[in-house]
């Protein structure tokens, strides 16, 4: 070695490898980065770089490079190293078996991992800290390694180790006592309260943990100092603190304090503000000269780091375009313990959005998204508009709300511009419903398809079928339901922005229902006795901007054709015939309920609607007065037992003919009104009063009220299938559709009412309002009644009830609920109170 000339350049003449390694010589040489024929300076960078490189591979131990021999200017090098041992097996003692796998995973102690000093130390520290964090202050961890040599499948031996980790958690350490020294102004109990996570052992605090955890204790010490600072002692500090181990399970904490003197706020000057006046800023600061000095509060009012939505001065600027504003507080004087402040504001330029982009929309077309943006190019930067846009984009239901993010690239303080990029992640917004079940005396099968982000214009484009054309924000639903007694087919389509200029919602639906009568002889459906309804409707709805933007005006034209074939029931006097219902509906709603549609905590919801048909009797030339008299005469014959049976049957036939004439084209108007309010009484407890009213009338009293479109009160209000345009009105505490009007003789009818009203008072309290499941309980009192004409109408003659219920909302299932109601009044036709009823609720009804 003595013949080396330091700093001289040599050429590598050869490299050899020595040592206990399973790697081939060539691999190691390649890995070292040294090459035969290469120039090296000894000692020099290349050699140390080679050692470093081999070290960094984390495969070797004891790496050294020697000079074997020198011939002229050729140098022969030798790399000596050893393979690092691999983990063969890990044993962990002192903890439960179930926790072991987790520890192995968290520390990557898997088989085959190379054992380094570093690995052993970090594992040890990790485990000690882990248990200390859980309150095991006396945790001790030791790791032993045992060499084993393993022969693998390729018959090469690898150095391997078994690892034994011994964990001695010891006893959980609790804080028996916390002792403060030096506090006069603030009582011990208040300071202890300020320590949020370190609690003294106390039998009354069963739920609060009194574990000693180092990290929590340190934060709590800061909280103690903060407590002083909040009360004017801005110089307060902890002079020393000590932990005294009382026994294996208990420690005591001694905290020595220095309070310092009490300070007050003096003059507060704002400097540099041009956009907002001193008065505006003072109103946000809400700190007056003479107040006890509170540094924490001051900081909060200037920039609350904990609450991004807080009303503070920083947000005042940030939310209104001054994105590059900075605010500094400077104490200019502290004479006589009175602190004068200067709040120095550099406003910067107001910032406008330059480019606003959306990325990640692999399915949804741009126009569906951009029309929902409240942040557009050229607009002043405004944080609340960004938040509103995010909220409304998630409400579309096309994107994953949790993954909707924003980014603000290219901020330019000189130009006063910034870009905004929304990143969306598409979610499946289609639903397929396929179910079968027993009900209504037989098997019912349902197939429902609903596509919530449909694209109608691509319906003829075969390339767009993946598996259905999507991306235009339209809704398409198909539903087939069939049992042996009825079949329903319906199709509906909705376009939320008809024409693309305004949010005018266009919707259309087509449906066909077939209903068969029960054949008592065969016990099956009688296909010869059928009632078919075919309907089509087209409607538009638009949000109004006046009087305020909670209003929606909707209009629809609907046509239904009823066809009866040998279908004689109490409801229809004409068993063979038809009826047409062409009606126009206009409705106005105002919905200002807020936050969560499942559980609103405030606002109100009003709706009023009118459904009208043409007044055919005015111009069709039929003398309904004459028909009315003729019908009355015929009815007398039917009722009179002195007539022979054929005569009475003929009279019945006559009534059917007259009724067919009366209901050929249905003539009616229907007015409905509904109002509900939500009011938070105390935190989260919401009161919901509501009232509703409905009236079905005839233009021509001689032609009379129609047997369709009526109101049926009672029960859960679920419209099982609206056979004849009937409306099920919920009234808990009574059986479904049981509150029927009574006739002149006091007997209950069963055709529903033409007038009803209902009042309800509900008190709701949420158990949980998490995204995955929203659950709330409710108590209610309500009453309602229906009549067949205005002369009988007495709106306060209510059927009353009260009860309790539970609602569960899960995104996958919708709203499910159960209510128990007690009816205080008898059902029409009975004399005793109805008593308890149980109602199951599916979907949003009440």
């Amino acid at each position, binding site marked *: 070695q003595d013949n080396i000339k330091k700093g001289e350049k040599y050429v590598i003449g050869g490299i050899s490898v020595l040592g206990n390694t399973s790697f081939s010589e060539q691999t190691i040489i390649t890995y070292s980065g040294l090459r035969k024929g290469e120039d090296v300076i000894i000692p020099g960078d290349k050699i140390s770089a080679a050692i470093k490189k081999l070290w960094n591979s984390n495969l070797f131990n004891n790496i050294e490079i020697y000079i074997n021999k020198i011939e002229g200017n050729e140098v022969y090098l030798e790399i000596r190293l050893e393979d690092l041992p691999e983990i063969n097996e890990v044993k962990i003692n002192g903890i439960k078996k179930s926790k072991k796998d987790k520890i192995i995973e968290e520390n990557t102690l898997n088989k085959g991992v190379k054992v380094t000093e570093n690995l052993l130390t970090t594992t040890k520290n990790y485990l000690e800290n882990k248990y200390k964090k859980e309150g095991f202050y006396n945790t001790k961890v030791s790791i032993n390694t045992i060499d084993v040599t393993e022969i693998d499948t390729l018959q090469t031996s690898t150095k391997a180790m078994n690892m034994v980790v011994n964990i001695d958690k010891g006893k959980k350490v609790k804080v028996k006592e916390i002792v403060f020294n030096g506090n006069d102004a603030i009582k011990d109990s208040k300071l202890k309260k300020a320590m949020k996570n370190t609690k003294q052992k106390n039998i009354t605090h069963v739920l609060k943990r009194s574990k000693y955890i180092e990290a929590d204790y340190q934060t709590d010490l800061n909280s103690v100092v903060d407590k002083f600072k909040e009360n004017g002692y801005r110089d307060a500090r902890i002079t020393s603190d000590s932990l005294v181990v009382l026994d294996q399970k208990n420690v005591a904490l001694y905290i020595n304090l220095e309070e310092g003197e009490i300070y007050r706020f003096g003059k507060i000057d704002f400097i540099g503000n041009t956009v907002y006046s001193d008065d505006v800023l003072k109103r946000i600061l809400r700190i007056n000269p003479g107040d006890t000095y509170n540094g924490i509060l001051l900081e909060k009012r200037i920039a609350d780091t904990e609450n991004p939505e807080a009303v503070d001065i920083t947000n005042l600027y940030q939310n209104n375009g001054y994105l590059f504003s900075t605010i500094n507080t400077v104490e200019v004087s502290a004479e006589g313990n009175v602190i004068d402040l200067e709040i120095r504001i550099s406003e910067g330029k107001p910032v406008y959005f*330059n480019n606003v982009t959306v990325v990640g929309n*692999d399915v949804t077309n*741009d*126009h569906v998204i951009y029309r929902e943006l409240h942040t*557009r190019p*050229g*607009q002043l930067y405004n944080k609340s508009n960004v938040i509103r846009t995010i909220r409304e984009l998630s409400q579309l239901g096309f994107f994953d709300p949790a993954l909707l993010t924003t980014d603000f690239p290219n901020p330019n303080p000189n130009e006063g511009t910034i870009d905004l990029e929304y990143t969306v992640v598409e979610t499946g917004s289609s639903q397929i419903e396929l179910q079968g079940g027993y009900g209504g005396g037989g098997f019912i099968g349902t197939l429902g398809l609903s596509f919530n982000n449909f694209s109608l214009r691509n319906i003829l484009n075969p390339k767009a079928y993946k598996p259905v054309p999507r*991306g235009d924000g339209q809704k398409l639903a198909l539903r087939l339901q069939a049992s042996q007694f009825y079949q329903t087919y319906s199709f509906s389509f909705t376009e939320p922005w008809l024409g693309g*200029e*305004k949010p005018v919602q266009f919707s259309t639906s087509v449906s066909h229902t077939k209903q068969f009568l029960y054949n008592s002889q065969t016990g099956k459906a009688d296909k010869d006795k059928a009632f078919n309804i075919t309907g089509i409707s087209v409607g538009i709805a638009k949000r109004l901007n006046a009087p305020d933007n909670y209003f929606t005006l909707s209009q629809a034209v609907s046509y239904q054709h009823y066809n009866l074939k040998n279908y004689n029931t109490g409801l229809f006097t004409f068993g063979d015939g038809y009826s047409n219902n062409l009606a126009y509906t206009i409705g106005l709603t105002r919905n200002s309920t807020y936050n969560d549609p499942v559980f609103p905590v405030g606002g109100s919801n009003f709706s009023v609607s009118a459904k009208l048909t043409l007044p055919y009797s005015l111009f069709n030339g039929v003398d309904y007065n004459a028909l009315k008299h003729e019908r009355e005469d015929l009815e007398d014959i039917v009722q009179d037992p002195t007539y022979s049976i054929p005569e009475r049957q003929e009279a019945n036939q006559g009534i059917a003919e007259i009724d067919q004439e009366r209901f050929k084209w249905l003539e009616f108007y229907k007015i409905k009104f509904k109002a509900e309010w939500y009011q938070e009484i105390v935190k989260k407890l919401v009161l919901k009063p509501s009232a509703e009213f409905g009236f079905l009338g005839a233009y021509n009293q001689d032609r009379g009220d129609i047997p369709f479109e009526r109101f049926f009160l009672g029960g859960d209000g679920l419209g099982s299938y609206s056979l004849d345009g009937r409306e099920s009105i919920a009234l808990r505490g009574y059986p479904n559709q049981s509150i029927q009007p009574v006739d002149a003789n006091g007997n209950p009818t069963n055709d529903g009412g033409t007038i009803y009203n209902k009042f309800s008072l509900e008190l709701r309290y949420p158990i949980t309002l998490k995204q995955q499941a929203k659950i709330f309980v409710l108590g209610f009192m309500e009453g309602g009644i229906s009549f067949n004409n205005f002369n009988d109408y007495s709106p306060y003659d209510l059927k009353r009830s009260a009860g309790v219920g539970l609602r569960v909302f899960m995104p996958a299932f919708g709203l499910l609920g159960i209510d128990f109601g007690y009816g205080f009044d008898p059902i029409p036709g009975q004399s005793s109170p109805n008593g308890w009823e149980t109602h199951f609720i599916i979907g949003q009804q009440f």
Partner: protein
Amino acid sequence: CSQYQKALKKPDVGEKFRVGEEMYNKGKFAKANKLFAQIVPNYRGKPQAEKLMFLYAKTYFEMKDYYLASYQFERFASAYPQSEKVEEASFLSGKSAYMLSPVYSKDQTETRDAIEKLQSFINLYPESEFLADANELVRELDFKLERKAFEIAKQYNKIAGYNGDYTASIKAFDNFILDFPGSTYREEAYFYKLDSAFKMAMNSVETKKEERLENVKLHHKNYKKNYSEYERMEDADKMIEEVIKELEKYRTKS
């Protein structure tokens, strides 16, 4: 049992390669792909791998699995930079990416990726026989980005009557004109800027109306300067007539 089935089951690597190539030549790319996929690991590091990897990538391309095709061609190009097929491979990698680019109205990440790949091909092989094709594809992709920006700006104009924000359209068209200087939509962009400015002025609050009306004149002038021969000039002139009429009210007042 067909020759393909036999080759698929037999462990003979050479046989798989031979039959795979035969399938490839017959145009049965799915079968060829299946055979090649089996033997790719066996040929790693061997001289025949070059040919195999190219054919393998090509089968994905022919099977219209452009995502994998683009990836495999890219891998080929980086693994065999000396290959005579490298030029074709890097073109096909770009073309595969092009095939993945969606309609302009959706996220254009793939479009930008394709432009980048094709552009780097053009830069690397300016003499290539595929140059004309590559340029054509890039042009088409660029047009997508152009159309996207244009349609978004135009939508701002369309919905401004509802949300009252005409500035959005003007600003978006300004950005469009800046970003796509050679666009075929340029004339239309200037026109819609004028249209937005016009509607903003006509629907303006009284305090800002005069200023905004004057502003329309500037937009009109800008349009007229370059596009006086265009069809829409007539509409533009109609707007300015109305603006002048409105402005007269302010003249007589003062």
